[in-house]
């Protein structure tokens, strides 16, 4: 019972914190992109445009909810909700400080990969349910991409698991707090594994340069072509949640999570997460987009073999006592 209350309380807190971070994150991204593009970004709503995300959300929620006549109503309505649930679900097992964690699962890594992998279902439901050719093409691409990039993602995540000997994310963080961060030491499986994790995570959350399922210059808006109003908002939110939670996961698995000197653990975790989050923006607003087949080639000819090699190296590292 105690655990249930703890989970419900912290789960609500973490979800609220993530959603409000995203609102401000959107403001920050727009300012950041504006500066990169020789313009100001939002300036009108509130001081320095700070209230812009809220204005955006209110505007989106006021929009008419349009459902195409021949859409598969059930799938069409279910998809955006599922998308948010799947992307928020990952956050359940991420420790934001030694005590702030919604549910300290023993198999946290497995949970993360499983829930993350479920993201394919709302994507396909949206693409199929919309009864739109652009959406269908987008869904087709998204599935190929998610399934393919799931492999290097798993391989990269397994490196810290093998090195720390724990499947629980808080266990992995605690191990790093005692010893060293995996991105720093052992540098050979650690840092490349992080790079692979980062790329795979960009692909899983459909971010440039891997945002081909959306590809608005090709597929209009991909799976979200037919979505309006609140449902579109949910998709939009799910994408940001996915990115933010992915950043938090990266910070926890490779950069020691809440571990850091001088300040409470939560501060360090937030700092590391937001740094990765901004890095994703930076990549997003500077790079162009790959083509679907180039994306697959990158996955299967580079990331996956390197991932396997890194896993073997980390296994050897542990076997021959490199850690202790």
């Amino acid at each position: 019972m105690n655990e249930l209350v703890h989970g419900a309380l912290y789960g609500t807190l973490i979800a609220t914190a993530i959603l409000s971070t995203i609102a401000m994150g959107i403001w920050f991204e727009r300012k950041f992109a504006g500066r990169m593009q020789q313009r100001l970004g939002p300036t009108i709503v509130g001081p320095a445009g700070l209230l812009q995300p809220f204005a955006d959300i209110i505007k989106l929620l006021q929009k008419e909810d349009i459902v195409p006549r021949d859409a598969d109503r059930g799938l069409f309505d279910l998809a955006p909700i599922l998308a948010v649930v799947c992307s928020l679900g990952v956050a359940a097992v991420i420790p934001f400080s030694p005590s702030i964690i919604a549910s300290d699962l023993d198999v946290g890594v497995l949970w993360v990969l499983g829930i993350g992998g479920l993201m394919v279902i709302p994507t396909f439901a949206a693409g199929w349910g919309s009864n739109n050719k652009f959406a269908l093409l987008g869904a087709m691409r998204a599935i190929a991409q998610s399934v393919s990039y799931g492999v290097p993602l798993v391989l990269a995540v397994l490196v810290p698991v093998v090195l720390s000997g724990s499947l629980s994310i808080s266990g992995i963080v605690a191990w790093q707090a005692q010893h060293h961060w995996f991105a720093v030491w052992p540098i050979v499986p650690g840092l490349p594994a992080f790079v692979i994790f980062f790329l795979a995570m960009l692909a899983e959350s459909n971010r440039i340069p891997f945002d081909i399922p959306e590809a608005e210059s090709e597929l209009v808006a991909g799976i979200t072509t037919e979505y309006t109003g609140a449902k579109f908002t949910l998709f939009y939110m799910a994408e940001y949640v996915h990115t933010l939670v992915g950043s938090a996961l990266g910070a926890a698995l490779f950069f020691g999570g809440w571990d850091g000197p001088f300040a409470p653990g939560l501060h360090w975790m937030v700092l590391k997460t937001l740094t990765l989050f901004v890095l994703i923006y930076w990549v997003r607003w500077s790079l162009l987009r790959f083509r679907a087949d180039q994306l697959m080639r990158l996955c299967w000819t580079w990331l996956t073999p390197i991932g396997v090699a890194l896993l073997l190296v980390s296994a050897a590292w542990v076997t021959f006592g490199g850690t202790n």
Partner: protein
Amino acid sequence: MEITVEVQSATRGSVDPHLSIHAYEAEGDLMLLHFGPQHPSTHGVFRMDLHLDGETIVKATPYIGYLHRGVEKLCEKLTYVQQTPIVDKNDYVAPMTNEQALNMAFEKLLNIEVPRRARYLRTIFAELQRVASHLVWLAAQSIDLGGALGGGSTLFLHCLRERELIMDLFEEVSGARFHYNTHTIGGNRHDLPDGWSKRAQAAISQIESRLSEYEDLSLGNQIFVDRMKGVGVLSAALALELGISGPVLRGSGVDHDLRRDAPYHAYDELEVQVAVEQGGDCLARAKVRFREIRESLRLARVAIDGIPEGPICSFKPTRQPTQVKLTGGQAYAALESPRGELGTFVIAGGDTPTSPYRLKIRAPSLHALAAIPYIVPGANVSDAVAILGSLDPIMGEVDR
């Protein structure tokens, strides 16, 4: 220079996608995707009907006419002097060259010599306009490749920033940012304001210094190169058969440029280095345009230094729209617009002597779009967007 390339209609047969479509059952195996006219990256209101096998395009059928405004018909009603600002809207990325092409035809019709100073001014405007137009091409191409919510838009906005410098220069001369109306029959309407040459040189230096940044962001970017290389290969023979000109033709390895081959304005006094790239793919076309930007900046700089003194118009400038009266005759004049051979064919006479009987504009973009059924099949949807961007069509000019 005379181009002699044997073009057999067999050329068309070997690449004709319509022949291979019979292998498919049209209803069962293929998906018909209406790509445009309401689509973010069709450069306006172009439409392609794509038959897709999975995501591979089996057949592409271009449809034009969504931006038809009846400009040629309108020109039959307006007097010769009134037509200049109307044609500005044809190629809305390079209005200056439209005016020049039109007035060159009228000058040829009337047998009027343009003063040397005006010819220099026209050269400078044409070259600066080419730079501005190619910057817009790069901007649009990067949006096509990178999306409006990503790296593409960053390059887009930076390109438009440099274009703004040129727009400002034109605004100083003509007072307008789009409908310049600065060319007229027999010369130019507006002389350069004081200090314009110095400001133009400064702007050219600034664009030159930033151009290498854009080259790093595009040609130096592995993703850009991967997306463009080997995509949309257009053979020289097919390009010639379809009447394609400009950077698209030069990207296919044909050394043809009206500025050098049939000099007009002051080009006979300037040495034009024509940029030619082999390959015929999107990357070759991109390289041609980058080299042309540099060459145009160089030409503009030389021309600005060499502006002679003298009158800017040989025809008595009046505000009388019925100034020109003709009962017969015809003329064709063409110039190298940023997109290729932009020609105007005019037949004088008809019911009213003050306006032409028929005016036909030969738009290079229209010919470039004719390549789509041949070079798009075999590519996928992403490539189709890149190919369309590399052809750099302006629908205002295609449909007129």
